[in-house]
């Protein structure tokens, strides 16, 4: 981001700050980076970002790895889009503080309790019960999602069918921010 004019700092947006942080591309510099460097770099950047914006941590992508030919990747691209539109409804799930994202198929679930239970199992955390008045009080986590308008909403407010048709991605927020959202 050194080359950026930092327009983002003054940009007017409706989303949460940093919510569309792009993935960082990195080529490991010779001799200076071991694998542990790469892994710890990822978590270091999270701590720094927590003070400024609260984006999910960027994943480090290594040039030429895994060793899959780019023509092969291009061939599959069309198919992948079909799959997401057709037989599955995969959305990305990020959890504040986790080093990488996951993907789940929303079509597999029939209700909010099923979805929340699956998320709790996947990430080994407790989300707690939803109440219209207090959100997810009583836990450190609040499940949120980005809807078609780009807004970040609390999971549970709208009927299930409306939710899965408008949900583009999930983010499980953590800490004081999460509690704050519930009290709005």
């Amino acid at each position: 981001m050194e080359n950026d004019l930092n327009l983002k700092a003054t940009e007017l947006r409706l989303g949460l700050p940093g919510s569309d942080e792009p993935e960082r591309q990195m080529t490991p510099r010779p001799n200076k980076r071991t694998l542990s460097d790469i892994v710890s770099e990822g978590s270091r950047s999270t701590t720094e970002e927590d003070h400024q914006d609260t984006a999910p941590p960027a994943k480090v992508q290594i040039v030429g790895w895994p060793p899959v030919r780019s023509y092969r990747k291009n061939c599959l691209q069309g198919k992948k889009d079909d799959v997401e539109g057709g037989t599955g409804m995969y959305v990305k799930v990020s959890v504040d503080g986790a080093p990488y994202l996951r993907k789940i198929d929303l079509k597999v679930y029939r209700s909010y309790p099923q979805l929340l239970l699956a998320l709790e199992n996947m990430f080994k955390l407790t989300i707690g019960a939803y109440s219209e008045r207090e959100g997810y009080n009583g836990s450190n986590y609040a499940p949120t999602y980005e809807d078609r308008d780009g807004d970040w909403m609390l999971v549970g407010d709208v009927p299930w069918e409306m939710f899965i048709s408008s949900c583009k991605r999930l983010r499980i927020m953590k800490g004081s921010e999460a509690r704050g959202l519930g009290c709005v």
Partner: protein
Amino acid sequence: MEPSELKRSKDSPNSDESTRRSSFPDEVLERVLSLLKSHRDRSSVSLVCKDWYNAERWSRTHVFIGNCYSVSPEIVARRFPKIRSVTLKGKPRFSDFNLVPENWGADIHAWLVVFAAKYPFLEELRLKRMAISDESLEFLAVSFPNFKALSLLSCDGFSTNGLAAIATHCKNLTELDIQENGIDDKGGSWLSCFPESFTSLEVLNFANLSSDINFDALERLVGRCKSMRVLKLNRSVSLEQLQRLLVNAPQLAELGTGSFSEELTFRQYVELESALSNCQNMHTLYGLWDAKGIYLPALYPVCTHLTFLNLSYAALRSDELAKLLAHCPRLKRLWVLDTVEDKGLEAVGLNCPLLEELRVFPADPFDEEIIHGVTEAGFVAVSFGCPRLHYVLYFCRQMTNAAVATIVQNCPDFTHFRLCIMNPGQPDYITNEPMDEAFGAVVKTCTKLQRLSVSGRLTDLTFEYIGRYAKNLETLSVAFAGSSDWGMQCVMGGCSKLRKLEIRDCPFGNAALLSGLEKYESMRSLWMSACNVTMNGCRLLAREMPRLNVEVMKEDGSDDSQADKVYVYRSIAGPRRDAPPSVLTL
């Protein structure tokens, strides 16, 4: 006839120089040697004595050059006057993964110019990882009146205009095989350039291209080329069009379908199935883009005699694969995507006892970690059902030492073991230990191992094992592994047959690089990138070993003393003169 038998008869105790020569006229020797096909045997033969060297060079018709910079076209032409077929390989393999700078080299043109002068009767050219322009293709098309076979694999620099030139001018073409190239696809009109009188094509592979071709032209071409045995279509060809082609080409031995997914009426489906069932010679099936499970049964009549099934473009589920494989008992080679998951691989183990080769590619290699894919369980399942397995390429996200030990116990005949645990440096996910014992088991058990790719968290112990046990190893690929120079030193010291070594992101430095000083001249090449090698180390190597080319590729913004990417190879042609500015020859 073995070269050793010939040698014995010449070296009978009572013969002297003159008797020896007169009892074996050159013509006879040449005739005998012309039966030798393997280029390695021929190289051995040429070293026996001067007579044999000469006889061999006059009888050789095919030359294989594994590194285009190891020799010059002039030297080749001087030694082998009667070449009709050339195979040339260019860039280092890691160029497939974008690790080699643009314009690195390996341009075919200088070779073509020499060939046009010295081998006007050239018939075949097979290129891998070479740069080839449209001008070169046009030059090729008009310079060789007998030209028959062109195969381009992982090449770049050309467009469909070059293919049009080939189609237009090569009247005797039997093979046009365009695979996995960085081709500038300007449209499908090139295929219409084959003249109506042209009937000799036996192999046509344009699966690489994405544009629509003129289907009528293709249909007529296939209809009149009665000797066609290999046809690999591109994605733009529909199922209905495929059926029309097959009706006119039931003799096909290898078929690459186009897109396998449009809506078919019942009658169209029946016609397709019928056309496929007439293809009694078909042993290879490829393509199947976007394959929809419901149409796969049309393939069942062909499946019974299939030996090679390439499903690596069809994102099948485990149940779809299982149903298909139930009809493929004779399968020897199978390529799939990891969408089939472990359950799909269980079906492989159950249905394909003759399987010799398995490749499992990741459907989502660059995406964030997803839940699906294959694990160690799938690989183990295959190993139980397929004892003849000797070639595997396996991309997964988790593996254990115990699983690999079981796998090689079931399949001890591995010649090619390429395991890619996609998260770099990942340990055994159950014990959290390094994967050293896994690869230790591979090299201890699989004594025929020729090619090995390692991955996961690995210490120097892995390389101790490799150096100690992998005595037949020729190609080794290493990434994000090792603890110190000692690892690479073990490999350089122990693997006597090593020919190609490619390393990236490992803590091997100058001591490791220089430990191979004596060895590099017996190898084809060494690649080291993002390791701890310095410019001084490379300079020392270049100084000590003048018959090696030591090339360093610098990255922008890196330390001046670091050798970011090093490529070392033996050469009798001296340092190359066509290197771009980013490549320094020391």
